[in-house]
């Protein structure tokens, strides 16, 4: 099973995102099913909704390019920009579609499919610029390409603020 198939299968299994295989991997269809990003219910007092923290089974510094989830990231870490690995800074909109990577969590030594959703609608945050390219694909294979501006799927428009690294699920 090559890596495109692995990624695609992981995507297919993910309940959180529905990314049509056709547009990227096939040649026949041009339609795209764009899932809206579900919002968690407001869980904190005073209507404040803080950045979503990492999961317990992780370690390291999410504001550092070396953090395990960032193995194919390219851009500014939302963790340094008012968001986190899985939340967008205030006033920015998560891109519903994006590129995915496969990174190994050193805590459990398992590979996970990571979705690098952009946060969009304000200009580049400029902090914590990272570029790692594990399994990054050329732009003509978009679903794995970190050179593309993925804000294209938002209501806000293409202006890119920062990048997240969201766990979609185990890769295998």
């Amino acid at each position: 099973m090559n890596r495109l198939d692995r990624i695609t299968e992981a995507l297919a299994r993910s309940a959180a995102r529905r990314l049509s295989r056709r547009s990227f991997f096939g040649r026949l269809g041009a339609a795209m099913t764009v899932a809206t990003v579900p919002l968690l219910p407001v869980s904190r007092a005073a209507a404040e909704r803080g950045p979503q923290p990492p999961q317990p089974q992780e370690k390291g510094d999410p504001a550092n390019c070396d953090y395990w989830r960032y193995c194919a990231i390219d851009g500014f870490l939302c963790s340094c920009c008012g968001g986190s690995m899985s939340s967008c800074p205030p006033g920015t909109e998560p891109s519903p579609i994006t590129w995915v990577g496969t990174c190994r969590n050193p805590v459990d030594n398992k590979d996970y499919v990571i979705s690098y959703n952009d946060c969009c609608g304000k200009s580049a945050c400029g902090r914590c610029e990272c570029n790692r390219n594990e399994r990054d694909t050329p732009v003509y294979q978009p679903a794995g390409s970190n050179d593309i501006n993925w804000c294209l799927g938002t209501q806000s428009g293409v202006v890119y603020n920062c990048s997240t690294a969201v766990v979609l699920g185990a890769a295998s």
Partner: protein
Amino acid sequence: MNIWRIAASAALAAAIVPAAALAQTEELKSEEMYQVELADQMRPHWVWVNDVSFTRPLDGRAYLLDADSGQFLGMVSGGYAQGPLQITRDGKRFSMVSTYYSRGTRGERTDVATFYDIKTLDQTGEVVIPPKHFISLPILSTARLSDDDRFLLVYNFTPEQSVSVVDVAAGKLIGETATPGCALVYPVAPRRFFMQCSDSALQAVSISEAGALSLDATTTKLFSDDDPANEKPVRITPAEWLFITRDSEVRIVDGSGAVPKVKAKWSLLDKDTAEWRIGGLQPSAYHARSGRLYTLMHVGDRDTHKDPGTEVWVYDVAAGKRVQRIKLDGPATALAVSEDAEPLLYTVMFGVDELAVYDARDGTKRRGITGLGNSLSVIQPAPVAP
């Protein structure tokens, strides 16, 4: 650069320890993204820093920082040579005045006042205004809210001079009034402000309930041509502004009457400090609770009025006397002080990407917040109702 060292470490302290046990058995869960929301009101040690992005001025912005934790809370993108924000007195909302061209650098110009709330840092509305707002290095008095947050007053320069009025509550432009020879907006009451004129007089202006401006009385010339007041005064009471001249002379102007009046005069300097001068882009700040004036000082002559300060000198305004000298960790072109009872002193240096945070009382440096871009101009602390 790490908002997580503070925010996450507490949250994770409990979480990561048991993780080692979990790790063998439990996979990471699929996550759902969301947008962070802030408290609905600026906290006392939150502070906005303007980045005019001087070498890339189409991409101006302002950053919201939490000086207590060092966290970067979020940002807003502005327009060409983005100026300061206008923050409402309750710290819940703000606006900014921006210029956009239809083709980035060319084409049709649109000036717009955009309104935001703090909680979402998202825009809540906009009002298109006459495409002539004054563009310069950021100066706080180029656009101001009236004291009750009802009207936004925008200074224009084409080079004809005027002030546009936006009705904030109604979300519409009311109009524009010519103010020949006079510039900038200094509120002194909910329906009154004055302007600085090129002949060093001040022009009183009143605002009707409908938002119409009337040019009222004008003072005589209050400052000499050789030692003009700067255009970066601080407001020390609702009706009083404290101006400082090139030669570091203080003039407190009382705008409560029909004609603005100089109420007090004293100097930042004495015979032992005659070689010093005030300087910078935002060279002074006032802390109302303590009656203290903070000034950015350096050694230099009259033409060094934009040079960075190496020290902050603190004055008791009522007494007109210096009470403290603070040596800065590095030079600074702007300073501000938080308005609360445990004040922080903030400084930035144009060209350096850091907000420096000091204890305003003992002058010790608490932290630096870096990665903010190289054209930090003005600092805007949270308003705190007195």
